[in-house]
């Protein structure tokens, strides 16, 4: 008999070369990650002496490569010059960190209970922020705001129970900290908080407790980081299939607390579809269901009080999740459309026929060009000749307007036969909307962009460019209008607020649903000449969100509300809805021990 097909190791689009070291090691992540930027310290974009773009390190496929078109794209898009630099403060000035406000008996009792804790300033600063632009911008300038007074590292569920008990006893404010990838100001310490603030870092609770192969579930401690979970499951031939863009750094508990969404949700579902059981420690005690039944009718699902609670009710400690056998075959793909409108129509049709691949995303023209700027140096004349030929075919022979065309990237998964069949079905639909298959390579590069974009923001910030991404979900019939209006609003608001050069304002449709889609915006601009760039940035983002809401978009698809979007919560869920959530908070946490003040 032929040997069984080889099982794939977890193979994300950015393809790790070397495994991260911190998974098992009980060291804090801060040693290998930037304190004032995104990701690993050794991986960053820079312009070398020749002015060529380069990505350092050895972790990613793009690492060590020269990106010859990056400089031109960067300068043309933002109107910047490499002469004008805005370098970040190289090291953290420890003396700028406010001294900790400690409740001594609380610290003493923690010690007795055997829970690791520290008030080392670097660790506190590291856990004082997420990755909103204003947070990183301040750190780069060496500005330190309110930071937690203490960091504690529980090892297991019972440690958390003890910590919460003690916090209640001494009226200490607890802020759960998972992967630190929040982009909603959720990790910022509330300025009005006068109590001692304790950051509860879940990173040491990172074990897979058991795998149930009969029911295809896994029981995991909630502090585990996405890539570690996936890698360890892969070793047993399974995966969860949950791949949010931040999965290199974000934690399971964080996914649950923010209602995360994964790239491959079309096959595996979003976090709410994936969890079977959740255990959370609250000031009132532990909340969990009594069984692992796949669905139940027992009143409103209590999981839905937990998912999206953003750390305001308690700490998620353990989660049972669905798993799937690793797919036999994976294939990337891409389709070029003559314009964005055709692309959206195609995605809508794919959704109507419910035949979406594991992932299907549609980039607009600006983002397509952005992707091109990240093309590594081609090794042979032959490849560059081929590229030229492709371009000629699409623009000249097929008559696509280079400034209108856009690209959909696809990822298929499953057994080989079915993938190929599926692929054909999708390409046939695309053809009806003028779409042309544009190869696996373009598709793969598209997904890579997702993982490196956050690194690119740091590069921009070295040269007067600031930016951010934000997302929404919207009914199908409004996708086009919303995309156009929001992009235009950004451009106009920037102009009105004195931004000298037109901003980079671009979007992509990243998820398809039966009744609508998820849309992701990137927005960045050159802030030279502005007195208060952060303020301008925040106003424009605010106006963009207003535009989204006016066009029938949601407040958030998966980033969450945090403190950044709190002002719209009442409008988003109605006064009664908000009251319901408030009364839950009041019952579960009357003394506001989980006082990060997100959401409500």
């Amino acid at each position, binding site marked *: 008999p032929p040997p069984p097909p080889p099982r794939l190791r977890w193979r994300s689009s950015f393809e790790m070369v070397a495994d991260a070291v911190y998974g098992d090691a009980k060291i804090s992540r801060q040693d290998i990650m930037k304190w004032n930027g995104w990701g690993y310290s050794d991986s960053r974009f820079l312009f070398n002496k020749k002015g060529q773009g380069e990505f350092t390190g050895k972790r990613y496929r793009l690492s060590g490569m020269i990106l010859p078109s990056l400089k031109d794209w960067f300068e043309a898009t933002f109107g910047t010059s490499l002469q004008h630099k805005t370098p970040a403060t190289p090291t953290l000035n420890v003396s700028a960190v406010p001294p900790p406000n400690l409740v001594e008996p609380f610290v003493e009792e923690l010690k007795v209970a055997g829970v690791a804790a520290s008030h080392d300033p670097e660790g506190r600063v590291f856990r004082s922020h997420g990755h909103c632009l204003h947070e990183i911008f301040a750190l780069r300038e060496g500005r330190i705001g309110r930071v937690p007074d203490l960091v504690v590292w529980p090892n297991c569920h019972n440690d958390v129970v003890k910590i919460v008990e003690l916090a209640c006893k001494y009226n200490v404010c607890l802020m759960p900290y998972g992967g630190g990838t929040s982009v909603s100001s959720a990790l910022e310490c509330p300025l009005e908080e006068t109590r001692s603030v304790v950051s509860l870092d879940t990173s040491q609770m990172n074990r897979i407790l058991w795998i149930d192969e009969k029911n295809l579930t896994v029981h995991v401690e909630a502090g585990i980081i996405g890539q570690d979970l996936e890698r360890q499951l892969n070793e047993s031939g399974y995966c969860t299939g949950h791949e949010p863009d931040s999965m290199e750094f974000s934690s399971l508990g964080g996914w649950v607390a923010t209602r995360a969404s994964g790239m491959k949700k079309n096959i595996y579902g979003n976090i709410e579809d994936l969890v079977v059981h959740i255990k959370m420690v609250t000031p009132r005690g532990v909340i969990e269901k009594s069984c692992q039944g796949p669905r139940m009718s027992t009143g409103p699902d209590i999981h839905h009080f937990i998912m999206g609670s953003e750390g305001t009710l308690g700490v998620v400690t353990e989660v049972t999740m669905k798993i799937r056998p690793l797919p036999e075959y994976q294939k990337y793909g891409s389709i070029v459309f003559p314009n964005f409108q055709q692309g959206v129509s195609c995605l809508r049709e794919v959704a109507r026929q419910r035949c979406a691949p594991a992932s299907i995303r549609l980039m607009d023209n600006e983002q397509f060009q952005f992707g091109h700027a990240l093309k590594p140096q081609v090794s042979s004349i032959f490849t560059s000749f081929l590229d030229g030929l492709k371009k000629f075919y699409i623009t000249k022979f097929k008559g696509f307007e280079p400034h209108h065309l856009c690209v959909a990237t696809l990822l298929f998964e499953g057994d080989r036969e079915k993938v190929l069949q599926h692929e054909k079905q999708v390409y046939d639909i695309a053809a009806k909307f003028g779409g042309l298959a544009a190869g696996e390579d373009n598709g793969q590069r598209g997904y890579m962009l997702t993982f490196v974009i956050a690194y690119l923001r740091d590069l921009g910030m070295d040269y007067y460019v600031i930016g951010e991404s934000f997302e929404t979900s919207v009914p199908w*019939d*409004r996708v086009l*209008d919303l995309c156009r*209006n929001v992009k235009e609003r950004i451009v106009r608001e920037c102009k009105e607020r004195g931004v000298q050069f037109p901003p980079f304002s671009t979007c992509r449709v990243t998820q398809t649903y039966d009744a609508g889609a998820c849309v992701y915006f990137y927005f960045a601009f050159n802030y030279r000449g502005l007195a208060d760039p952060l303020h301008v940035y925040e106003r424009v983002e605010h106006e963009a969100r207003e535009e989204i*809401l*006016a*066009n*029938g978009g949601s407040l958030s698809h998966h980033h969450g509300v945090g403190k950044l979007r709190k002002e719209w919560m009442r409008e988003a869920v109605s006064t009664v809805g908000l009251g319901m959530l408030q009364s839950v908070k009041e019952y579960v946490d009357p003394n506001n021990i989980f006082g990060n003040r997100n959401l409500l």
Partner: protein
Amino acid sequence: MQEFSMTKPSFVDILEERRRGSDISHALRAFSPPPGCGAPPPSPSALNKMVLESQHLRYVVLEVRGHSEGGEAAALLDEMSQNLQVTFIRLLGFALSKIFTRLFRRIQVNEDGLARLQQATQEHPVILMPNHRSYVDFLVLSYIMFTYDLSIPVIAAGIPLMGMSLIGEIFRRSGAFFIRRAIGSDKLYWAVLSEYVRTIVRTGFAPVEFYVEGLRSRTLKSLTPKMGMMHMVLEPFLKGEVYDLSLVPVSISYDRVLEESLLAHELLGVPKPRETTRGLLKARRVLEQDYGSMHVYFGNPVSVRELAKGRIGRGQYNLVPRDLPGRPSEESQAFASAAAHRVVRLQERGTVLSPWSLTALLVLQRPDGTRWDLLARDTLWLRGIALQLGARLDWPADLPDLEVMSSSMALHRSVVRCEEGCVWLVEEAGPEPVTQEEGVFRRASAVLMCASYRNQALHVFTRPAMVAVAMGTVPGHSQEDIYRHFCFLRDLFANEFVFVPGCGPQDFEEGCSGLQQCGAVSATDHELKPTEEERDTIVFLSAILEPFIETYQVTGDNCTLLYFSLRNCLSFFPSHFREIFPNSTRYTLPGGYLPPTPTCCKLQCPNIYFRQSHCRIHPGSCSPTPLCGPQVATSSPI
């Protein structure tokens, strides 16, 4: 956003080049307007297909007819839709060059406005909103746009134009689409029309042109806007289908209106002749007269998005499909109404006045004749006031003032005549002997024409005049009291003059600062006092409003009577009653004077109530009329 630039626009005569160059080569010139904001223009049939396939229309067809057959809708659309073809624009360009050069001395166009318009067409869908004073308005914008290489607009036209054999088809191919009058509750027709308009706005391939006043103003005074088309063009913005819309107010004014006597007769109850090709050919003789200049002022584009800021939530469509047919919400109605009124206001302010408008105002106050030198002196005095109040005058600086006035008046020899140093209103010639009724009739048409030209300038004076009247009716000088009376007048005249709803304080402010400009009042913190030196101005301004106030008073006082015995009491009313009366009865409805019965609806139709034996021209007396204050006016129920 600056809605109205006070800088003096630079007008250019587009006929000058036509007189020098060949009309053929003008018509055949390379015409390549810069692409608009939207996709390339769809063919008329593709456009119609988009409309017929729209979800909105399908909903309505199913709702109204109970099946999904679209045949009926397709027929309506065929009747309605435009069929814009560049060839016909060229043909039209040729014909209009011929006609316009004969009719007018000049067609003055502000090029800065056209430059702004061009800019606007490249950013967002543009709605051209001209005022409507004459049949000539129709297509003149298309002609200008063709001359300046801008996209030809799609124009909303009344269906009678379509009925004109040949001409109707030419109009259609020049971009006109035809709307039935009195659509009433024909849901299907509304649906087809609104979807058609929305589709054009959404695709943004050509500017949409429509008359927000709904019809030609027979009195040359701005009409309160009609809302049907306004809702249709605004909807794509409110539903987020376009990022923004530019409303471009266009003010067209004539030294002399072609159909001036036709209009006067219509006001006197002679039915409007039907629009027919034969009629048009018969009217050839109008080509032989001199109509002076025509001014077309393209105003600053008004961004609907800016207008909407803080005034209307676009989220109202978030919970229902946007294609679902439904009445606009109260909020959108109020918004559309405010926007429409604002545009009409901007049209007024952009209007270029001829010296004759000012003279007419004075002539009307001295209907029994006056000395030319006095009239000239007063016209110059009035010019000073008008300029201080921000009027735009076409007063050539390089000619002596007397010559300007006399040549401007000479253009209107059908209305006034200057003999032996005296100025007289002209009586129509006719077979003798005349009955008393005929005599009045003959004279009335000159009065009404005169009044119409005065009306062109009325908007300049309305607000200061209302403040002046209010000041005369308040015992002290308290600004607050004056404001209260001002507001009463504003409500009273809501159908008479155009006031942007909700802008009472701004209107008052405008009136006060106008009076201050003229030096007629001095304002302290809480008081507004007339100055001694310029008492004449106050008196004069009050007198402008007097005929209106009087008519409203008569209407108010006699409503009960009117209700029962229309014919008898009408015979006592002065002639200006004829133009104001319909509005004044309309006011009485919300005021509670008259129940909305069929009788009073008929009142608004001029030919019903014209049966008079006696007509008194209102003497231009200058004493301020005592006015019934708010308390009195609202407390006289039927």
